[in-house]
């Protein structure tokens, strides 16, 4: 076997740099995603270091990264949580969709994109980053707050909306007509429902088929099955991502927990490759003229998410400060805005740089804003109480 020194070296250096960036981001309780994008942007042709050997691996890793991101999303999903969110927060989801998709669509129209481009940009501004936000709420110790279930419910409903949105976009982007796209959505929604029912009634059979006490075996089986289903989904033009999402939905209970545990490191690696690849595909010359548009869009959709979060929290009877916390928490956009752009081909040369810059701004600004709006929690509540009562 021939070992490519250049590949190993480039990849090793890239991973080391990503690790430093990730540590830096975590130090300030930020998501590493914007820094990964920046790293990708600074590499490649015209960047500080061309990486011809590792570039190919990053591209392949990126397509696996999308699959694993969606698989993890499906594994997170539980039918009880979904129905509970649905019961309380359908109006919040509607407000969310209208307020946040419309600015993206209008911006796409102003930039002169075609219908598919408009749809893609609307999706990118609509979907908040459930990964960044769930982690942020934990880090800021807000899981106990009353507004948190409303925030998480909005995120669950957004993630579920992706199940209909991604195949629609995938079919249209691959040159299908509107009726083909509608068929694709029907197939995907039907498959999601089938996966739900299957996991509900026969989930333990599927679990038994894939389950194995050895974690290595478990990883190989779940990963293998996911990639096969993803390939089939891609073959019928409903996007590999949706196939992986379905596998994640169909796995429930103990096997889902174990699969999450064994696949998380893999997902982190390949998702990093995916963000790098998106950064790599953007050239600085294309990016600069689109920066004002990205900033303006970020400012507008930060405000619309704020309104969305305040509305959702008010439905749960949360007070003024809690509503503000909920609104600011939802601002962060991240992995799924990037996934949406990843679905589109190279013909949308404006969209890649625009959304990369947009996500960069909001993935940094969102967590910072919500951190500033929440008062720092007091650390010595017991002693204070004793003084007050004694």
């Amino acid at each position, binding site marked *: 076997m021939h070992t490519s020194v250049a590949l190993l070296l480039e990849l090793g250096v890239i991973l080391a740099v990503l690790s430093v960036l990730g540590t830096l981001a975590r130090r300030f309780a930020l998501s590493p995603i914007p820094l990964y994008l920046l790293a990708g942007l600074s590499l490649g042709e015209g960047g500080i270091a061309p990486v011809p050997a590792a570039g190919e691996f990053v591209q392949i890793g990126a397509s696996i990264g999308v699959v694993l991101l969606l698989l993890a999303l499906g594994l997170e999903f539980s039918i009880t*949580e979904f129905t509970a969110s649905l019961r309380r927060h359908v109006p919040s989801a509607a407000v969310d969709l209208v307020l946040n998709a419309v600015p993206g669509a209008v911006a796409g129209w102003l930039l002169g994109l075609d219908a598919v481009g408009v749809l893609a940009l609307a999706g990118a501004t609509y979907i908040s980053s459930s990964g960044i936000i769930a982690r942020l709420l934990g880090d800021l110790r807000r899981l106990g707050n009353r507004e948190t279930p409303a925030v998480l419910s909005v995120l669950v409903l957004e993630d579920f909306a992706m199940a209909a949105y991604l195949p629609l976009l995938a079919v249209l982007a691959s040159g299908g007509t509107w009726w083909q796209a509608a068929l694709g959505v029907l197939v995907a929604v039907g498959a999601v429902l089938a996966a739900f029912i299957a996991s509900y009634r026969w989930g333990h059979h599927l679990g038994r088929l894939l389950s194995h006490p050895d974690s290595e075996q478990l990883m190989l089986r779940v990963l293998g099955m996911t990639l096969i289903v993803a390939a089939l989904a891609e073959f019928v033009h409903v996007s590999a991502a949706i196939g992986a999402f379905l596998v994640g939905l169909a796995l429930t209970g103990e096997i889902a927990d174990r699969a999450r545990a064994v696949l998380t490191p893999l997902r982190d690696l390949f998702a990093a490759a995916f963000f790098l690849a998106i950064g790599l595909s953007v050239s600085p010359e294309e990016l600069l003229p689109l920066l004002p548009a990205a900033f303006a869009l970020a400012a507008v959709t930060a405000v619309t998410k704020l309104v969305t979060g305040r509305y959702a929290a008010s439905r749960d009877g949360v007070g003024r400060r809690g509503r503000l916390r909920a609104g600011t928490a939802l601002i962060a956009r991240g992995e799924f805005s990037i996934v949406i752009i990843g679905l589109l081909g190279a013909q949308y040369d404006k969209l890649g740089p625009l959304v990369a810059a947009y996500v960069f701004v909001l993935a940094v600004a969102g967590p910072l804003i919500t951190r500033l709006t929440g008062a720092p929690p007091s650390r010595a*509540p017991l002693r204070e109480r004793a003084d007050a009562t004694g």
Partner: protein
Amino acid sequence: MDVNEVLLPGVGLRYEFTNHEGDRVGVVARRTGEFELIVYADDDPDEGRPMLRLNSEEADTLAEILGAPRIAERFADLTKEVPGLSAGQVEVRAGTPYADRPLGHTRARSRTGASIVAIVRGEDVIASPAPDQVLRAGDVLVVIGTRDGIAGVEQIIQG
């Protein structure tokens, strides 16, 4: 006692209750097995004051300290390691001669060699009960001893 369960989609569950002093207490159980304890402030019921975070091992330890059923479980583990020794539970039924009488009156240890190491009373556990501890109907005694010894204690308590 009323315990509120709140779903935290994608994260886990939150349990909430009010204790006898009127403090609103929250327990966040994350899917990953970690726990977070929160007390809600009087001036802003929406915002929790985070008290502590526990990983799953620490949470197990805390639950063992607080939880009655877990004590019996631990004794069961203990007796696995000592051959010939086992743990049992003996219920004090209504109408037995020793209900409402001190534990010492049963003279259980001197008659059977088995020790009564704890009394489970409803939600509470009285660990290492003294001989003057009064038994009540409905109590469950946790007994450590030989198999015969435990059967002996059962006979004494049932009268």
